[in-house]
C-alpha cells in the first residue's frame, strides 16, 4: 500500500490564492436551485458536472467516487447520492443540498428525487427554490414525470423554470428533437402558471451547454445553463410592497442596562419597514409607530425580506408570538376559513372532518377539514370532484381543501406573498408533517 505524502502547503500569497480569495470575498447574492428528474435523466450527472466544472468538487471526493464508479468513466452522479440505500439502488430518495459558487453568485442546489413515491421530498427541496431545473431525456421526450415536476414547481410558485433537454449527444445534437420537446413543454406550461420558462439543450455527460456553449449545437443561440443561472434576475421575486412582519419571539432582557427594552423579533415576510412607520398589530388591531429596528449589528434604517430583525414599537402594547405587524390600510386577510391547495404527504389519507394542527408563519392553530373540494390529477390537471362521496387525498396527492381554524390566521394569497400564503399541516398524534398548503383564491 502506498502511503500518500502530506500535501505541501498552499502558497497563500500566490496569484491563484489571491484571485480565489477575491472571489470568496466578492459581494454576491444567493440563488437557490432545485433540480428534479430521475437518475435516468442524468440529473445527478448534471449536478456532478456543475460542481466539477465550477471546481466545487474536492480531490478526496473525486477520488472516493472514482473508487466507487463501476463503468469506464468516473460517475459524477455518485457525488450527489449520499445515502447507502441510494447508492445501492441507484436512485435518489431524499434531497441532498450542494453548494458551489462562481464570481457572480453563490448557489444552493437542492438535488431532489424524481420518483413519484418520494414526491414529498421533492416538494421539500423545491419549496425554498428561486429556480427549478426539470430534466428531460432528449430520446424520451416529455414524460409523465417531467409534467409532474413542472406542475409541482408551478404549484410552489418557484419563480423561474428551466427545462434542460439532456443527452443531446445521443440524438446526434438534433435541432428538430430539441424543438419538438421545447414546443411540447411550452404548450404544457401555458396551462400552468410559469412566469419564466427557459429551455436549454445539453449533454451533462460531455458538458455541452452546461458551463460553456456547445460547439456541437451551433444552432442553439441561447446561453449555457450556468450562464443563465448566474444572470437570472431574482430580486423582484419578493414582495416589497405589502408590509408583513410575523412576530416570532419577544425579547425582554429584564436587566438593569436594558430595563425597558421590549423588542419583537422576527423575519420580514413582506414590504419594507422603517422607524417612524405607522403600523397596525394583528389580531388586536391597535396602531402605533415603529420606534426603532435592531438588526444583527445594531439599529438599521430599514428592514426588508428576508432580514431577521427586532422591531421596537413606540407604545407599550400587548404583542406576542404569532401576532403580525402590518400597515394600517394594507392588512392581510384575517380569517378562520382557509381555502388552499394541499400537497398531502402521509400514508394515512386526508379526509373531510379530519383534525390537524396548522403552522402558518409563527402562528400555530388547530383546524378541521371542512371540505375536500377536488383532487387534482397531476398529469392531466383534471379535477376529480367528490361526486360520490368518499374522496380522499393519498400520499403525494394534491387537492383543494377548505379548513376551519380554531383561531384566525393572517393570510395573503400564495401568489401575492409566498410567506404569508403558505402553511404546513401536522398530525397531532404522530407529530409528523403531513401536508403543505398554499392559499389560493376560490375558483
Amino acid at each position, binding site marked *: 500500500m502506498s502511503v500518500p505524502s502530506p*500535501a505541501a502547503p498552499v502558497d497563500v500569497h500566490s496569484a491563484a490564492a489571491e484571485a480565489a480569495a477575491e472571489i470568496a470575498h466578492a459581494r454576491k447574492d444567493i440563488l437557490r436551485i432545485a433540480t428534479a428528474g430521475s437518475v435516468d435523466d442524468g440529473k445527478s450527472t448534471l449536478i456532478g458536472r456543475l460542481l466539477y466544472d465550477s471546481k466545487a468538487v474536492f480531490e478526496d471526493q473525486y477520488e472516493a467516487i472514482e473508487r466507487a464508479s463501476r463503468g469506464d468513466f468516473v460517475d459524477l452522479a455518485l457525488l450527489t447520492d449520499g445515502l447507502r440505500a441510494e447508492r445501492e439502488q441507484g436512485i435518489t430518495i431524499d434531497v441532498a443540498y450542494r453548494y458551489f459558487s462562481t464570481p457572480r453568485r453563490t448557489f444552493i442546489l437542492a438535488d431532489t428525487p424524481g420518483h413519484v413515491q418520494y414526491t414529498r421530498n421533492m416538494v421539500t427541496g423545491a419549496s425554498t427554490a428561486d429556480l427549478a431545473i426539470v430534466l428531460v431525456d432528449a430520446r424520451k421526450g416529455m414524460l409523465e414525470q417531467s409534467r409532474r415536476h413542472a406542475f409541482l414547481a408551478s404549484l410552489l410558485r418557484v419563480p423561474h423554470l428551466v427545462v434542460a433537454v439532456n443527452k443531446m449527444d445521443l440524438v446526434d445534437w438534433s435541432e428538430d428533437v430539441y424543438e419538438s420537446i421545447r414546443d411540447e413543454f411550452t404548450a404544457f406550461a401555458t396551462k400552468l402558471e410559469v412566469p419564466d420558462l427557459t429551455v436549454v439543450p445539453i449533454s451533462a455527460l460531455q458538458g455541452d451547454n452546461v458551463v460553456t456553449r456547445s460547439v456541437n449545437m451551433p444552432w442553439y443561440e441561447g446561453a449555457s445553463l450556468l450562464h443563465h443561472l448566474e444572470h437570472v434576475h431574482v430580486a423582484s421575486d419578493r414582495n416589497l410592497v405589502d408590509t408583513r412582519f410575523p412576530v416570532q419571539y419577544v425579547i425582554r432582557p429584564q436587566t438593569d442596562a436594558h430595563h425597558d427594552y421590549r423588542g419583537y423579533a422576527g423575519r420580514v415576510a413582506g414590504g419594507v419597514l422603517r422607524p417612524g412607520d405607522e403600523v397596525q398589530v394583528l389580531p388586536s388591531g391597535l396602531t402605533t409607530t415603529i420606534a426603532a429596528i435592531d438588526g444583527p449589528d445594531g439599529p438599521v434604517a430599514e428592514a426588508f425580506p428576508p432580514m431577521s430583525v427586532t422591531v421596537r414599537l413606540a407604545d407599550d402594547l400587548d404583542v406576542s408570538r404569532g401576532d403580525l405587524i402590518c400597515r394600517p390600510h394594507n392588512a392581510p386577510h384575517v380569517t378562520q376559513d382557509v381555502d388552499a391547495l394541499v400537497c398531502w404527504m402521509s400514508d394515512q389519507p386526508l379526509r373531510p372532518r379530519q383534525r390537524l394542527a396548522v403552522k402558518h408563519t409563527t402562528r400555530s392553530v388547530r383546524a378541521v377539514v371542512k371540505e375536500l373540494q377536488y383532487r387534482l390529477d397531476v398529469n392531466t390537471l383534471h379535477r376529480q370532484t367528490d361526486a360520490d362521496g368518499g374522496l380522499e387525498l393519498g400520499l403525494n396527492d394534491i387537492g383543494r381543501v377548505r379548513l376551519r381554524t380554531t383561531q384566525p390566521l393572517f393570510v395573503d394569497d400564495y401568489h401575492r406573498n409566498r410567506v404569508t400564503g403558505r402553511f404546513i399541516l401536522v398530525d397531532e398524534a404522530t407529530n409528523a408533517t403531513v401536508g*403543505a398548503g398554499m392559499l389560493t383564491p376560490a375558483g
Partner: protein
Amino acid sequence: MTTPDYRLTQLQTLEAESIHVLREVAAECERPVLLFSGGKDSIVMLELARKAFAPARIPFPVMHVDTGLNFPEVLELRDKRVAELGVELVVASVADAIAAGTVQEEPNGSRNRIQTPVLLDAVEEHGFTALFGGARRDEDKARAKERVFSFRDDFGQWDPKNQRPELWDLYNGRIHQGESIRVFPLSNWTELDIWGYIAQEEIAIPPLYLARERDVVDRQGMLYAVNEFITPREGEQVLRESVRYRTVGDANLTAAVRSTAANVEEIIAEIAVTRLTERGATRGDDKVSEAAMEDRKKEGYF
C-alpha cells in the same frame, strides 16, 4: 447597511436564516441546548445565538461533550466565551463515564464513538428536547441529506430514509416525551462562509487554526502535532513544520496540515484554492468507509 436594491449579501442572507432558526427553537422547543465544541463552527453558532437574542442573554445553556482529549486552547476559549456571555455551561464528561463504567475506552484510543452515549445520557439527565449543532451540509454526503430540524427517536437515532418533510422555513419541532430534535442553524453555510464571517465579525478563534511552527510526526500521510496526547512512537521522526488545524477534534486524533496561513485572511486564501475537503484531510475517524458518517449519525452522533 442600507442597500437601495434591497439585496443582502450571501453572509447577510445566511446570518438572517440562522438567526431565524435559533429564535424559532427558543420559541417552540421546551428545553433547548447549544452544543459547543470550541471548533470554529460552534464558535460562529454561539455568536449567532448572541445576536439572535441581544440585548438579552442567550435563553438556553451551552453543553460541551468533554472527551477529556481537549486542546487546552479550546477549553480556554470555551470558558472565556461562556463568562462573557453569562450563559450556563453544562459539561458532559466522557472520562467520568469511562470511570463510572457506562462506556468503555475503544482500543484505538478514539472517543469519537463513545461520546455518543455520553451525549445521549446528558440529554436525558437534563431533559434537553432540542440540541443545536454546528454541522454544515457541505461537510459530508450524509450531512448533505439532513434537515435543518432533524428528528431523533427516543434512542437518539436518525432515520435518513424517513425524514420529516421540511417545507419552506416552517419548521416542525413537535416531539413526544423522550424524543428530541437536532437543529442545524449553519446547514447552508460552507467552510468559506464560516471563515468569511469570522473575518468580517472579527470573532476570536483558538490559535490552533493559525499556522505556526510545530513539532509533528508523520503517520500514514497525516501530520500529528506532538502534544500531551501524541508522543512520538519508536522509529518515528519528529519534524519541525509550519502547520495549522483545519478542524479541531480530539487532540489525540486530529491531524494538522502543512500551511503558512497565519491569519484569517490567509486562511481564506488557502481554502479558496485548496483541493481537499476538511474532514477528509484531517480526521482519521472519517476515513473508515464511504458511509462512516451516515452510520455514526444513525446512532445519534452529531
